[in-house]
């Protein structure tokens, strides 16, 4: 460990950390916003559900590096444009979260849906007032997986030169120098733990009604 190197490079490392943070979080947020309507559609329409969830599952099997390299061809962006990484990671987050949202809505007890219908809830108010709030625990569990796996996938983008903590790995490899690699690993783990904890905390705040939640 060369702490003098860390100290000298701290400005750049902090910058890479912020890039990593942004590249991990922004795609999950966009993915969630897209997954909500798609997951809702998937959960409602039986035949559509298997097609949509199957397609989403397939997306997830495309290697990330392939996506990073192919996207510029599709989007017409430059190969070094961080937009490629954002789009690729959004695709992954979406693939994961469509199923999560659909499962979350599926987890709402049928008795509760029936009662809501019988009281005269229309479809959209029922979705926003009853179903989504009750789907929060399942959706939050999926979100935790999505952010944590995004933190690790982002570092692969080092191979195409996008700024984030992964650059510390490639640099360490090229210079046969361990310090940047260790610093990169520690910061990635920290970031993953931080984001995971954040989602967990927000979910707890949104579900005071859960057994074991905030006691009244």
């Amino acid at each position, binding site marked *: 460990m060369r702490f003098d190197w860390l100290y000298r490079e701290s400005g750049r490392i902090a910058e890479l950390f912020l890039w990593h943070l942004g590249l991990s979080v922004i795609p999950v947020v966009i993915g969630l916003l897209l997954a909500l309507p798609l997951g809702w559609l998937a959960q409602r329409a039986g035949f559509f559900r298997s097609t949509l969830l199957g397609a989403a599952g397939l997306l997830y099997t495309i290697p990330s590096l392939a996506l990073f390299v192919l996207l510029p061809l599709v989007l017409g962006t430059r190969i070094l444009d961080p937009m490629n990484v954002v789009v690729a990671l959004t695709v992954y987050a979406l693939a994961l979260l469509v199923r999560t949202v659909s499962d979350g809505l599926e987890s709402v007890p049928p*008795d*509760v849906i029936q009662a809501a219908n019988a009281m*005269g809830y229309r479809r959209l108010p029922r979705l926003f007032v009853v179903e989504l709030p009750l789907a929060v625990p399942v959706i939050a569990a999926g979100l935790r997986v999505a952010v944590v796996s995004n933190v690790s996938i982002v570092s692969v983008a080092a191979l195409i030169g996008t700024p984030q903590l992964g650059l510390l790995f490639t640099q360490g490899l090229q210079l046969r120098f361990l310090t940047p690699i260790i610093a990169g690993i520690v910061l990635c783990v920290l970031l993953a733990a931080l984001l995971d904890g954040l989602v967990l905390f927000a979910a707890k705040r949104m579900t005071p009604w859960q057994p074991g939640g905030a006691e009244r």
Partner: protein
Amino acid sequence: MITFDTVSKHYRGQTVAVDKLSLTAPTGKLTIFVGPSGCGKTTSLRMVNRLIAPSSGRILLDGEPTDTMDVAVLRRKIGYVIQNAGLFPHRTVVQNIATTARLNGTPKDQALRIAHDLLERVGLSSAFANRYPWQLSGGQQQRVGVARALASDPKFMLMDEPFSAVDPVVRGQLQDEFLRLQRDIGKTIIMVTHDIDEALKLGDQVVVLRTGGTLAQVATPQELLARPADDFVADFIGRDRGYRVLGFAEFAKGGVPLGAEPTATLGATPETLRQIATDRWVLVTDPLNRPLGWADVDSLKGPLRDGDLNLSGTLAVEGSSLRHVLDAVLSSPSGRGVIVGQSGELMGTVTLSHVAEAIEAARTGRLGTQP
């Protein structure tokens, strides 16, 4: 008034679930749909608020056909209670209750006030107001479910096996409380149950359905016990019909002469007891003249203590049914049934021959009204 006009329901690729049902649930009365499992009770009920669409026929509310109404508007007019309450897990008890009022446009403050009032009406203390449903027992959840249905003050209510999911003791309590409530509010209610005893206990009118969703009989509980329409109904009502009909015959005040019963209190000596006794048994009361049990004069050795009392006899409250009075007689070691007033004070005793006369009078009275 809820009217079924030749209503049928066929599920896809299935035999009929409900077959040309025509009947009327009168305004302010509790109508009970009863029948074996799978006879189409739930289907019939859910066609009223169009959770299920009839295949043919019409249902009318106060003469107005439901099939042309806006479905959400229709449902908001009708209270609905189901077996497991179906409360919103993420809402507190008062928020749950207020839901129906809110849906009908009541401002939030007022809806919450209504909810707090209803909490008390259904027998829950205000300590429950801010709890979440998982913190309540099944019986308590069911009470909240009833309160929620009432919060919009609907004219009509539908209840699907509302008391089936709780243990028998709680079920009895809920039934009694619900009867009292309904006496006050007089809603037009259709309730579904598979339990004939519940139907006979609660119903103003009982609709017996048979498998295949056809109507077997519509009658008051008394009529049903006295004149089942056919073998199916008779079978479904079960044994003890003759005995159970006594549950509907009120033990009229003055109908049977009450015998004066000599009583003793705890601490009395065997000599005193022997002096007042008319036979082996002496009724023992507390200082407020409320019966405690019977003392056996023959086996008493010292002053009368708690442990000497025979507690087998049931008490019949004045004005209760002949069934209770007969039970009081049959369960009493002295053969004299104890009748008490509303606050539990001793009124007197009756013998089996007196009750038999009352039963006979009730029976001939009943036969007299037969066409």
